[in-house]
């Protein structure tokens, strides 16, 4: 691999995702150019940048929708197990490495009920419990138990995001903000170690946005996972991120705490404009 080992030495024990020298080209277009950074467990890592900076492409590389042209993406579990994400098929990243994501334009199973959306998210676990359907077909107790547990987990998430009352309605009939929350809950139901959120606050009103902040922070504090967050809404990013990576034209131009980023002249120039609006 072309990755420089220099970075790994600096990586502390709680580094969850190591992005090393990631480059993604589409034909002649360089969407991501030699980007390296770390995302840590129990932290929210914000990724910001102007439109077209390559944020979503970065997500697509991490979650296996694109194969990076160059670079290494290492996911380290707490138990020491490592996954090289760039070598894995798209769905295996969710299944084995347990990286979950949400989408910029919400992708729920709109015709299925809210509860079913959360059950589908627990597919792999339930598939095993159902003995790859064979045991399940005959109603084996193992499967029934697993199904009940899955349902309890789903219900607990529904309560948390305030959608218990509409559990049986088609997900597509929910209002926009509720769909965003449901998508996050669905991702969480896969029991991920890394949760990637692609503009979760887009289209939310200020109140919903504040609720979202609270939800994300509670996820960070309660679960032992890392969050990766693409966001345009500065109040969200600055308010809840522990660490921020700034991209511009596919390259990383800055990295640091929200305060440092706020005062970084390169960031102000490229992204926030000469005169800070805050």
């Amino acid at each position: 691999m072309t990755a420089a080992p220099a970075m790994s030495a600096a990586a502390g024990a709680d580094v969850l995702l190591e992005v090393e020298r990631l480059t993604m080209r589409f034909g002649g277009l360089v969407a991501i150019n030699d980007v390296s950074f770390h995302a840590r467990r129990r932290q929210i890592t914000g990724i910001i940048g102007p439109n077209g900076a390559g944020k979503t492409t970065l997500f697509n590389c991490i979650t296996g929708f694109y194969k990076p042209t160059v670079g290494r993406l290492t996911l380290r579990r707490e138990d020491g197990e490592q996954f090289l994400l760039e070598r894995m098929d798209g769905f295996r990243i969710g299944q084995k490495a347990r990286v979950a994501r949400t989408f910029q334009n919400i992708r729920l199973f709109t015709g299925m009920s809210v509860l079913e959306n959360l059950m589908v998210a627990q597919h792999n676990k339930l598939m095993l419990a159902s003995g790859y359907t064979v045991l399940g077909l005959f109603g084996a107790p193992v499967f029934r138990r697993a199904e009940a547990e899955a349902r309890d987990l789903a219900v607990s998430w529904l309560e948390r995001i305030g959608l218990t009352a509409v559990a049986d309605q088609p997900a597509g009939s929910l209002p926009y903000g509720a769909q965003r929350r449901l998508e996050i809950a669905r991702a969480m139901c896969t029991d991920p170690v890394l949760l990637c959120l692609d503009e979760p606050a887009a289209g939310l009103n200020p109140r919903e946005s504040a609720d979202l902040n609270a939800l994300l922070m509670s996820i960070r504090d309660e679960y032992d996972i890392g969050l990766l967050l693409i966001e345009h809404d500065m109040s969200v990013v600055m308010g809840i991120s522990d660490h921020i990576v700034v991209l511009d034209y596919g390259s990383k131009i800055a990295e640091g705490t929200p305060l440092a980023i706020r005062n970084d002249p390169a960031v102000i120039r490229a992204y926030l404009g000469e005169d800070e609006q805050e």
Partner: protein
Amino acid sequence: MSANVAAPQAPSVFFQAAKEAFFTAILVAMLSILMVGYQTEVLQGQNMSYVTRFGDVMWAVILVPVGRFLLVLGRSGMLWPPVVLAGAATIYLFGAAVLGLLGLAIYPTLPLPYDQPMVNAIFAVGGLFVVAGAARARRDRTKGAQTFEKREAAEARQAHVAKNLSRILGPILIVVALVIPWTPWGDRALVDSLVLVMTYVMLGWGLNIVVGLAGLLDLGYVAFYAVGAYTYGKLSTSLGLTFWESLPIAGAMAALFGIILGFPVLRLRGDYLAIVTLGFGEIIRIILINWQAFTGGPNGIGNITRVDFFGLPFERNPAPGTESFHTFFGIDFSTTHRVVFLYYVIIALALITNFVTIRLRKMPIGRAWEALREDETACRALGINPTNTKLTAFAIGAMFAGFAGSFFAARQGFVSPESFTFIESAVILAIVVLGGMGSQVGVALAALLLIGLPEVLRDLSLYRMLVFGGVMVLIMLWRPKGLLAYREPTLLLHGRRGKKKAEVPA
């Protein structure tokens, strides 16, 4: 009342209607002048000649534009004149057609546009269309313009009706199906037709897994039906296996074919998958025609052991030393025994298909199928293996087609490639879509309609498939989502009655 609505704009409405009727007349003339006006005939020695039928063209050029004229008037709010005129024409033409079909002597004396009763009946359907159009326009008018919300509400209502209807209809259909051979109407011909209908119900339910649940457009489903049929045919003629012994093998073979064919192509999306499956269907058929040594070529495989009653054959004169169904039970021999038994076998097979499908839907795999139909990208993000999931749907669907195929072979006693043409795949797909994708009762109804109807129309040999195609179009136009379209969640938090539409906290 209707006049009040139409009066202020009457001249322009009439003008508009006349204009449209004029264009319709030109169109109908263009469509019919050569195709209907000149019937080509092949003479001796490869020469051709023709007979003209300008009378038929003329009537079409008169009747269709008149219908269009009335329809435009009806749509613009005039109710009674179009309904009365078109209605009267419909009743007259349809009544006359019925008289003609019954072969009554009065028919030729009636003044009618066409000699053939069925053609008059088809024009009667056109009249019905006008009446329906006018009535619908009136309904929309009194209820105000259609808005998006209203349409959604109407769809929700329809789904609700469909749900309740299926809940009532399902058990009723099963009971009727079970007792019908014992009723006075359950004669051999009817039961025989019902066997055919039930075969298609089973095929429809099988394909429903692939198309309705997993959302994979399969236009070559008949290939797996063929694999099942030929598997039993070969096992019976070469190895002497009975139907019951072959049944699981036939299903397994079909499933295996499903996996082999599915593996390379299931990555393809939507219509690409459709054309490739269609291609596979044709490939299998061509191989069946041409691989003389194994499949018997165009003549197929004959002398396949018919289905037996768990070891007892249905034969008038059983071989010496063996028993037959009627000798064992000490009853008189009747060919009906076999038909009735076949009927129950296929009902059992179909119900098993149905039961397994309903169970599968509630399994993780079933939910994954539906999720995959809704959004494959999201599925991958959730760690669901799309290829394996699709492959299971494909294989399980194929397996049921294999069962149905081996039943078909056991019923017929012979198999040949001509039973497995593309049109069969198309009909099965039509059953699934017309039924309302995913709705088990809907599929059964659609099969009853699409397979039963041609059976009823058997006497109209020439018009049978014409009506069949027309009905397919009309039903789809009438209910684009299918006859009984609704989806019930696979698990409910609040039970069947549920809470009334709850407020969603924003």
